[in-house]
């Protein structure tokens, strides 16, 4: 309907959204959904998040010296920020699970207005929580959203925490090694994990400054913790699983916007069995080509990082999958070649349907990786995010 009424509105909407949210959220809302009944609701919330950023926010322009735990906590001077956890778990019977817990923070304005009402806040929190139950071929995903509110949602610096209802991400610097705790529950699914890492964080891009386009300030601060050792509890209905595994944390904050011609992105993160890891994001352009600002990092077993440019990586799509729910066709198999590192990685989803069908439409899921480095086989597990399809 929206398209039929005004193609221009649609294009404008989408551009606006791409500008403000796409890169930032890493998830694309598609206004031309098949589900008419929820369309306007999605549009309502979307319009709010997509409203143009105001200039008073800080921008990521210079590489910054990260300092922890300070930088694990929120950066309120930037419009958008997220704590993005993904990982692979298995219970005592080696039953495999994938999980995602992401909390996003948005500011509609830099300044708070004086009011006695707690709702007069510019801050919005959005949460995505998913469990991929690989054996049962089922994907449970939940979305929540709220304005920051003392009793509902918020971020705090001391202690480092971000929460939305009973979904909480906390960092404790006092433990040794310092640890993250993730808790999320909805309906009959509950996750409670402790995550620790002996490795330092990996600064992505130019010492943590990740440029998304040629324009100054169109960049984010971006660091990852590619190897977090996870342990805890996962409840699925009546079953309680003690789980262990590996998790990946992406932290990013920015006030940036995408270039007009950028359509979406594919993000790959693989943890290899030899403790090395690879992250690469490909920015796709509307014309089908890859954006030159696509980038990534390879971390070897000892924790040494190598920056990867767009030209270092070539990606071949080996398969496609079409969602029955949204009719969107997503890539469903990839081969990444990194000649510089003598690395070749083939990836396949562990579960086909790991599509998000809420307000934000994207595919994010657990994958298996079969790789070769300098001719030696190397297995791994990873997560892939596909937006803008």
């Amino acid at each position, binding site marked *: *309907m*929206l398209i039929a009424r005004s193609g221009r*509105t649609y294009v404008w*909407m989408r551009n606006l959204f791409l500008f403000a949210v796409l890169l930032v959220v890493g998830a694309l809302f598609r*206004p031309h959904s098949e589900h008419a*009944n929820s*369309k*306007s*609701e999605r*549009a*309502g*919330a*979307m*319009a*709010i998040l997509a*409203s143009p950023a105001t200039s008073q926010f800080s921008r990521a322009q210079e590489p910054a010296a990260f300092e922890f735990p300070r930088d694990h906590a929120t950066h309120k001077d930037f419009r958008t920020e997220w704590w993005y956890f993904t990982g692979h778990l298995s219970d005592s019977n080696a039953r495999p699970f994938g999980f995602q817990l992401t909390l996003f923070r948005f500011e*509609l*304005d830099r300044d708070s*207005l004086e*009011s*006695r*009402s*707690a*709702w*007069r806040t*510019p801050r*919005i929190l959005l949460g995505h929580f998913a469990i991929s139950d690989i054996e049962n071929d089922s994907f449970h995903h*939940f979305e*929540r*959203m*709220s*304005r920051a*509110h*003392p*009793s*509902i949602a918020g971020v705090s610096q001391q202690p480092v925490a971000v929460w939305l*209802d*009973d979904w909480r991400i906390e960092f404790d610097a006092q433990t040794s090694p310092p640890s993250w705790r993730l808790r999320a529950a*909805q*309906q009959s699914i509950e996750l409670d994990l402790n995550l620790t890492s002996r490795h330092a964080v990996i600064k992505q891009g130019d010492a943590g400054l990740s440029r998304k386009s040629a324009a100054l300030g169109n960049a984010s601060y971006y660091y990852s913790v590619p190897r977090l050792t996870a342990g805890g509890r996962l409840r699925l209905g009546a079953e309680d699983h003690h789980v262990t595994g590996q998790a990946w944390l992406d932290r990013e904050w920015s006030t940036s916007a995408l270039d007009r011609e950028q359509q979406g992105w594919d993000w790959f993160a693989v943890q290899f069995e030899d403790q090395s890891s690879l992250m690469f994001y490909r920015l796709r352009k509307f014309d089908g080509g890859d954006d030159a600002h696509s980038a990534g990092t390879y971390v070897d077993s000892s924790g040494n990082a190598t920056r990867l440019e767009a030209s270092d990586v070539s990606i071949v799509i080996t398969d496609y999958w079409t969602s029955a729910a949204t009719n969107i066709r997503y890539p469903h198999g990839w081969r990444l070649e990194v000649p510089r590192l003598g690395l070749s990685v083939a990836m396949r989803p562990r579960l086909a349907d790991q599509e998000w069908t809420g307000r934000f439409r994207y595919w994010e899921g657990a994958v298996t990786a079969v790789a070769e480095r300098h001719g030696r086989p190397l297995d791994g597990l990873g997560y892939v995010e596909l937006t803008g399809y």
Partner: protein
Amino acid sequence: MSLLFRASARHLLHHRSQCLLAVTGIALGVAIVISIQITQLSARTAFAQSLESIFGRATHQISAIDGDFDEARLATIRIAVPHWHPTPVVDTQVEFDRDGERHSLPVIGIDPLTGPALGTGNGAGLDLTRLMRQPGSALISSHTATRLGLRSGQSVRVQGPRGASELEIIEVFDTRVIVDALVVDIATAQELAGRPFRLSRIELQRPGEANDEISEPGLLRALGPTLRLTDRRQNLASAEQLTHAFYTNLDALGMLALLVGAFMIYNTMTFLVVQRQTLYARLRALGVSRNAIGGQILTEALLLGAIGGCVGNAIGYGLAQLLSEPVAQTVSDHYIGAAHSAVVASPGLLLLGMLLAIVSAVCAAILPAWQATRLEPAQIVRLSVQESESQSVLSYAAAIGVLSALLGMVLLAMTTHSLYAGFAALGCLVVAATLLTPRLVQLMLNAIERNLAARLPLPERLAAKNATRSMARIGLAIAALMAATATSVGVGLMVGSFRTAVDDWLQQLMRADLYVSQNFERRDQAAIDNTLITQVLANPRVASVSRVARVYIDNDGVETRVTAYDLPPAARAGFRFIDGDIDAIWENWKQPGHVIVSEPFAWHQRLEVGDRYRLPTPNGIVPMTVMGVYTDYGSERGVVAISWENYHRYWGKNLAHSIGIYAANHVALDALENDLRRQLQAEEHLTVWPNAQLRARSLAIFDRTFVVTDVLTLLAALIAALGVFNALLALNLERAHEYAVLRAVGWRRALVRRYLYAQTLIVTALALLIALPVGALIAVLLIEIINVRSFGWSMDFSWNNSALVLPCLLALLGAAAATVLPAEQAVRADPARALRYE
């Protein structure tokens, strides 16, 4: 085409005006019934829509048993049922002046992030970010924008519960349903209401089938004892329960109008049959069967009824447009803040209109049809024969009337609570009076003839005599006029008595010299605290202060008001007890476990003094002893009254909604009022009301309530006047030769006119003579039976002449007007031509 059919069609075409009148009568009757039904349906739709309103697919609602609630509770609900998509709402209200008129508009505070989908199709066009970020920004539906002449970009200065503020209409939106409210961000609503951290309700969308049992233990825990979950469909059901009695009353009025319409059909059909007696006799001689003739007459009635039904539906729809506003106003004054709705007519209703028209027309034609079938072939019809038969019809009618009256009395004797039985009995008595009327008028005319005739001038004497003779023809029209007038008088007397009772009650209840109340009668905003009361009491002009607070309880699914009173001795006389020992009541008033209840509450709950009532409080259910039952016209659902001490004890509250101020002796009230206004200047949400002003305001609402009733009774009277017109026209057509004779023997036109008007006035006056006592009887029944059974209100009957004047005047004028055309026809007729047919 059969001979019978052609004969029938020819006759009806030749008597178009008569048919037209019959159709008009039935059409107006149907119009009134249908308009009431449409109005009711529209109001119901409006309410259903206001429930649906902007929260489209919400299925459930969480609200506090008592007023608003802490917004922290939303957090627990969100955690308990995140998949129900809970969204918070803050309701408040603003007033503003526009074109010299004060408007009151509900304000709905929503959370655009989790909340409803605004606008048709998609909300993408609405700047919800601005709504969230710009304090005082508001959206308005296109319906409301048009109604109030507001447009996008306009700033409106409004009075909110916390005083004046500026709202900017940032956008106008279209909705599928009519939302007559300002839509603001939840923060703006809290700021306007001056109630930060409080929510009015939480809207939820329950996934899955509506009829599944709710198995959410987490939700039930989160609700605790103070929050309650309601299903929207339940809300609709309870709203219907509330307005049931109100609409039943309107329906009864509508049925009465239809009855009058049916009388007109009967009248016309009888006349059409009488005119064709010779024709039918000839047809019988030609071999047409009795059944064919009877069937033909019924077919004619069916046709007239069908036309009347169509026209009636159309008029009813138009009438509904006029009625919907006052009805909606009444409903929101007394029951629920229903949204104004477009007038909607359902096919079912229109079908009902057709059916009512046809059934009443056919029923009214049964007797005339039966009469026609009894004619022998080629029977020479003499008027005298026919009239003696009519004479027996009058006697039959009177006999049925007596039976109907007996039935009515039996109904009354056998039931105590049923409203339908009450109306049925009332209907029986009205029918009885109506059926008896022609016979009574005839008897009175006979008496006049015997005792007065010699003393009357010739035209009047002749008029009385002629009227007696014509009673078979005009009797029913007169009866219908009587019924309509009696109903008008009865309703008028009832409303008058009611008003007197309410006025007396207000006068007795409102004993304070001045009142201070919050601008907005919102339950959740009791805000007058002790500091203010101490301040007021510090004024030497003030003798004492009373306090009133209201809380709401869930009484078997029906929301019930509990009013807490802190009464200085001077205020206690404000209660008029119908039952209970006054000394005992006041002795135990402040003790735990004692309540008094209003009359409607006692009636609906079937409580008596000494009974136990289980009062739900935040601290659980407390058994209370009913100490007394008092008069209260403020709430038809009824009220439980408790002492301030018990309010504090069980609700743990100390805030009042309003206070009454008693002046010290010999204090000038003006000075005291000025003192208070100065003192309360900073408290913009409070208003000082002098006693008389508050009473006038209460009575104004009362008067508004009966606007609809007035309109409907006047319409019934109008139909009756048409009935008289119809009957007189027929009569005069038939008597044309007689007038010709009068003209031939030298009567001037003026004299003939005088004779005709005299005839009308005599029978109308006699009908009114019967209408007055019958009206009084109706009033008594309305007061003693219908009001009690509808609302549980008792009151004394009080006579007021003004209730009589208008209906009587209207009947006389109507009858006189109805004579104009027939009289002119009669005097214009050429005597020679009329005599030639003799």
